[in-house]
């Protein structure tokens, strides 16, 4: 079994496992990190999103081998940050959450966007979210949540 080492939520971890195992399964099964969800298993819905070196990836389409030596942050790790607090408060306030199944992925997408572009316009937000499906909200309140997070977190990103 290959040995794969990577940084997971700020801690160095080692996994002995087949290289093509899905990162999503490794996170959920080996580390009991169930914040990333499986919605489609094929890279369409973004429910499984995590940060790979600060950028959003779908963990269901990421083979374990790809994260060797890299840094992964899941919603569990991200939720310890100040940025998370701002995004969380904005989603709560603006009604960005309904069933919640897409929400951890949406939060990861928000962080990935704001990290690159702290003051996105409406169009940029919609493009950034286009890999994250939500069947409950019609995205309207999610967009407003992200606008609010960008405003409230001015200077943090």
């Amino acid at each position, binding site marked *: 079994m290959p040995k794969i080492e990577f940084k997971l939520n700020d801690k160095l971890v080692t996994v002995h496992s087949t290289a093509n195992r899905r990162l999503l399964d490794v996170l*959920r099964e080996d580390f009991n990190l*169930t*914040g*990333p*969800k*499986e*919605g*489609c*298993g*094929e890279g*369409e*819905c973004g*429910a499984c999103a995590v940060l790979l070196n600060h950028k959003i990836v779908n963990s269901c389409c990421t083979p374990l081998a790809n994260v060797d030596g890299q840094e992964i942050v*899941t*919603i*569990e790790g991200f*939720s310890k940050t100040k940025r998370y607090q701002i*995004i*969380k408060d904005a*989603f*709560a*306030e603006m*009604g960005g*959450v*309904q*069933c*919640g*199944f*897409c*929400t*951890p992925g949406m*939060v990861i997408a928000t962080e990935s966007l704001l990290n690159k572009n702290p003051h996105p316009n*409406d169009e940029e*937000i*919609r*493009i950034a*979210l*286009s890999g*994250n*499906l*939500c*069947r*409950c*909200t*019609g*995205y*309207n*309140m*999610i*967009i407003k949540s992200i606008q609010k997070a960008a405003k409230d977190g001015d200077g943090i990103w």
Partner: protein
Amino acid sequence: MKDISKSINKVDNEEKISGSAEYIADIKMDGMLYAMTLRSSIVKGEIIKISYPKIPDNYYVIDHKDVQGKNIVKIIYDDMPIFTTKKISYLHEPIALVIGPEKEKIVEILDSIEIKYKEEEPQFEWEDSVVDFHFDKGEGERVFDHADKVISYDYETGYQEQAYIETQGFIGYQDGDKTTLIGSIQCPYYVKNALIQALDSEPENVRVIQSTVGGAFGGKEEFPSLIGCQLAVAVKKIKKPIQLIYEREEDMLVTTKRHPAKIHFDAAIKENKIKGIKAHVGIDGGATIGLSGVVLSRAMLACSGAYTIDNLDITGDVYKTNTVPNGAFRGFGAPQMMFAIEMFVEHIAKDLNIDPLEFRKSILAKQNDHTSTNGVYRDPILMPEMIEKAMKESDYLRKKKAYANPNIFKGIGMSFFFHGCGFTGSGEKKIIKARVRLRKHKNNKAEILIAAVDMGQGVKTTFRKLVANILEIDIENVIFNNPDTDYVPDSGPTVASRTMMIVGGLVARAAKEMKQRWREDEFVVEKQYKQPDYIKYDEENFIGDAYPAYSWGVNVVEVEVSKTTYQVKLVKTWSVYDGGKAIDEKVVLGQADGGLAQGVGYGYLEVMNHKQGKIQQKNMTDYIIPTAKDMPDMETYLYDNPYAFGPYGAKGVGELTLVGGAPAVAKAIENAINKRIYKIPVTPEYIMELINNAKN
């Protein structure tokens, strides 16, 4: 007391945003096995022989022979087997569960099972009617005898898939005689009652618990009873915890969908007015009937849309075909009819050379008018002001005129619609008989004990808020856990826009009584549903008040159509709703956004079809639902029109927000391309066909 509509933050935000909320796939139990389903590879015929490989230790095959009770899923119409015994009536019909500790091994076993079939010719035409209804209003068909002319059109709607982002799933375990299922479900007692019949167990030996639900939209109304029964049979026999969760492809191919429909209309016209309408509604039930009859009746009852038509002759059929069974989906028959009638009235006006908007406004239903079944719209109807509001906010008239220019390919469309709140007919009184319970704990906390499920629509928040408001205590002092049939009474399923109006109404009554007795230490208040006396409905003949109350809505959608690709782009939407008093404005606005997204998606984007009984869209790549890029900015306005029997005046809003989307977007596209639209979804291919067809 402050206005209850004023929004608070939802009570489950924290756990959902942080990813710590437990959905069914997040629950693990010691020694848990996995189950996968063996399915038919033919569409119609009989199983002659199944050859299983040698099944290794700790692996199991569970099929119809293991069902101790009745091998039928208890739904409204009992025609769906839990596992087929022999007969196959649709592709991928469930035959058995294969269960064991390793998923790869289960797949290996499934792949090496050989089934010999005798194939038969499948039936896909809509010929075999298994349910048929008919009703008249006023003079019925006779009004056609003295018509100046008759205008007739046909309309068609496609499949729609609920596409909840969390797929179907359960975990089950056995404890002594007791079988427990935890699941992603809308109706804990539907599942429990189905299990009692399947397992032949005593009610106290069956327990059903709701896990956090990642979206449902009707898709988790009756379908979970099927897989719940399958899993429970396995759990009771194997006596180990077992997880049954569908992958997306399986979920797309085999779960119930919105019924495709074909609607034919004839209108009797005299002196440029609609004197009467004759309609036939056909829906494809798929291979089993299940809820299809109830869906058909809701479609038929909506036949005059938001208008009053004095004379009606309405017939409908559910056709059985060898396709995946169709079932509940938010709107439940109304979206099909609302699209058809909205287009029909528009097309009649165009044929008569009358301005469609004025024509439609002149026949809007008013308070005290008679419904399609001669019930009465008892409560005030605010449609004229709501329409005016929608037109003003959207700048409707100016745009409509500007977009009449055939070269600019922009369009604006407006739909008027209603939704009957709660179960159709006497369902509440005769079948559901909802019961709710409130418990006062010693520590001055109140606990809500009901079977209503929060599937994202905010029930936990709105119910805790409702009780806190009446008891005048903090919302933190109101407890509402996910329903567990061992603790909550049967307050009915979480469907039909009934939860706040009916269950909430009962909870409010219980809370008022609790308030009177608040000084007592510890006690329980129970309430049972009683139909208001004036509501009378004759199920058989479709006469009377089919619903206790009606919610109303107006949607305006603006679009741009590409001149080269015929792709439709939504520019903006404006909506106005009267769902009675909002128990929480933000929650209702959230329903409004999500419902409209599904409604417009149904109208122009979401394509699903079958070829020889095989659903052609097997994942989220093939089945397109709106993304953040597809959806535009949405503006919504709520009208406060309290309903006397709802808590604080609340009616139903969950489904209302979906039913107007398709006709609004279709009318907008009609305006943009100057061609008439007769079917949804309005895809680029359909637009091309319309544009190339000079006659249209």
